[in-house]
């Protein structure tokens, strides 16, 4: 009897078919066997390969179906479990015991009721729900203070509300009332000396009457003379247009200002005034006082008021210091040593004054710059006139300044603008934002899921639909997610909240303004790479994309169902 050698397709095809059947999902393996049993019927190599390819496609399809369905099973249970294998598709019910669900939900609620967490959630809602830019009128803390002010016309409260208002007329009316009741609040006029703060095109300086009142109240303050000089040097609204049309450079403006006796006299008065006070401490005290007395501990208020505070014009100071340096050098060259000494001394005096009383980092930086410039030139002049004791004193001061100077200029950069610090603040901000969004999404989902689960608990498994399936899945997972995001929110924000609350405590001096500003701005900042999430355009794109994906998903399901119906 002649023996025939089997063809390659007859040799390998059954092995491949057996392998396919072996890895076929258990629930539908019968169909894999059905496919494999037909293989001997394929006579040619071509039909065998085609049949096998079809089998592989079927296998892939079954595996995808299997993987999708396994998502609906509790972790740890296999598809071969009787309960999972023989129950209808949407019959899933929550697996989490009631006591655990209640415990997790109560823990989340307890964390969310913590004042720090409530605070950060409020800040996030201001940041992402209100119109762009700061609008204190929308903040619940400011609304509360306004409500209190209706019955209690406390001057400190009115002063703070005037600083929080965005309406110029209201600001001035409130500060006037506060100053009339308590003249020690007259410094408010300086804070409101260029209004409105948020619109440079509509800004105007303080009225003559208010300015006179301010100068009368604090005649020895150099900052007020600087304000007078600023109104001459930078007339509001005219300046930008003037600059644009005439293309005036800074130097030509300075030259024009030197010839203006009023400006020179105001700057001289500023540089020789006995003190320098931009009223930052008064501002801090006001925030602390109102926060403590009216129990409104909102870091956002402090952040807003301190960030919007009036600061001296740096160009003005730098410009006048340059004018004095040039003048003193000319006098020195002309042999008028005493006049040159007097001019450098004016610079040095101002530098010492600003170094002692200036609160902002840029003021310290400026003081050191002007002071070093003056002291370096002044010491040899004193030596040349035989005033060695004064020269030694100045050299001592110079050395002190040099010793204090950090080789890194970053020392003068506010904490929140330093890159490494900024980066860590920004990442904390991102975690807080993500956790905050998760909390606000997961909490309602938990309640909706529980509502559906409880309401449909008596519905037989065969009548359950996708809503029941998803509700049961959410009821199992949402309490965990809610607890995790609440804890994350609390843990991340807590260190910053402590800094803020220490700063807002009356009488506390351990927390610096810069530390407070850095801590208070954390919920509102994001790393540059993900900064787009705070952009409303990307919110719109995100929501549209998500809805689009959902729509495509449901359409796909509908098409599949109509196709699969037979």
């Amino acid at each position: 009897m002649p023996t025939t050698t089997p063809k390659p397709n007859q040799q390998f095809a059954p092995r491949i078919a057996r392998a396919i059947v072996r890895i076929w999902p258990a629930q539908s393996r019968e169909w894999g066997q059905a496919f494999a049993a037909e293989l001997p019927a394929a006579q040619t190599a071509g039909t065998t390969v085609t049949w096998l390819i079809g089998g592989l496609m079927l296998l892939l399809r079954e595996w995808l179906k299997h993987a999708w369905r396994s998502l609906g099973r509790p972790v740890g249970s296999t598809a071969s479990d009787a309960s999972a294998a023989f129950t209808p598709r949407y019959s899933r019910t929550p697996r989490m015991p009631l006591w655990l669900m209640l415990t997790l939900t109560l823990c989340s609620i307890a964390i969310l009721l913590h004042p720090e967490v409530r605070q950060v959630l409020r800040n996030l809602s201001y940041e992402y729900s209100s119109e762009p830019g700061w609008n204190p009128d929308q903040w619940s803390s400011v609304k509360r203070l306004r409500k209190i002010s209706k019955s209690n016309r406390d001057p400190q409260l009115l002063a703070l509300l005037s600083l929080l208002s965005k309406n110029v007329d209201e600001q001035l009316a409130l500060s006037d009332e506060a100053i009339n009741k308590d003249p020690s609040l007259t410094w408010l006029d300086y804070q409101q000396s260029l209004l409105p703060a948020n619109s440079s095109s509509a800004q105007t300086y303080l009225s003559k009457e208010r300015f006179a009142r301010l100068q009368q109240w604090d005649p020895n303050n150099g900052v007020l003379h600087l304000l007078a000089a600023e109104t001459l040097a930078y007339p509001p609204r005219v300046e930008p247009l003037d600059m644009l049309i005439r293309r005036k450079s800074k130097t030509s403006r300075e030259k024009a200002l030197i010839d203006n006796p009023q400006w020179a006299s105001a700057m001289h008065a500023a540089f020789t005034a006995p003190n320098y006070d931009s009223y930052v401490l008064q501002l801090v005290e006001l925030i602390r006082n109102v926060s403590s007395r009216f129990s409104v501990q909102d870091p956002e208020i402090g952040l807003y008021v301190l960030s919007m505070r009036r600061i001296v014009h740096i160009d003005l100071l730098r410009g006048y210091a340059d004018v004095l340096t040039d003048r003193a050098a000319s006098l020195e060259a002309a042999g008028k040593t005493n006049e040159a000494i007097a001019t450098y001394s004016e610079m040095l005096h101002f530098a010492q004054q600003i170094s002692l009383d200036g609160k902002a980092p840029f003021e310290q930086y400026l003081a050191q710059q002007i002071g070093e410039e003056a002291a370096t030139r002044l010491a040899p002049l004193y030596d040349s006139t035989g005033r060695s004791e004064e020269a030694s004193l100045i050299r001592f001061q110079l050395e002190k300044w040099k010793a204090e100077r950090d080789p890194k200029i970053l020392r003068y950069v506010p904490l929140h603008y330093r890159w490494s610090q900024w980066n860590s603040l920004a990442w904390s901000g991102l975690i807080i934002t993500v956790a905050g969004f998760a909390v606000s999404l997961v909490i309602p989902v938990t309640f909706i899921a529980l509502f559906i689960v409880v309401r449909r608990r008596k519905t037989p498994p065969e009548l359950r639909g996708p809503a029941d399936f998803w509700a049961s899945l959410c009821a199992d997972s949402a309490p965990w997610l809610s607890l995790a995001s609440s804890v994350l929110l609390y843990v991340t924000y807590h260190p910053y909240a402590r800094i803020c609350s220490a700063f807002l405590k009356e009488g506390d001096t351990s927390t610096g303004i810069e530390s407070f500003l850095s801590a208070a701005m954390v919920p509102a900042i994001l790393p540059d790479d993900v900064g787009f999430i705070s952009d409303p355009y990307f919110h719109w794109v995100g929501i549209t994309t998500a809805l689009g994906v959902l729509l495509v998903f449901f359409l796909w399901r509908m098409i599949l169902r109509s196709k699969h119906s037979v």
Partner: protein
Amino acid sequence: MGRRLRISPQTLSLLEALLYKPTTWHHGYALSQQTNLASGTLYPILMRLEKLRWLETTWEQPGIGAAAGRPPRHLYRLTSEARAWAREELADAQKRKFWKPALNNA
């Protein structure tokens, strides 16, 4: 069969093949040959029909396959309820010119 369903031309071809000898058991390869459907298309349709209980399935007697030197085959035929429904569907699809019978000489 309760609700009206949209059926693909491939399903109609398969129904036509199953209705050719409605009481006889058919096997997959033969159905594939009759309908020109690849195994990757044919089996999902068979599985859906079976899930909807419009298709009866059984395994061939072991002796029959063994005699021919092959494993027992999986066999299919429409349920008596499904036959009436399938005829309606085929007639309707033909009327709508959605589908043309391939076995019209049967």
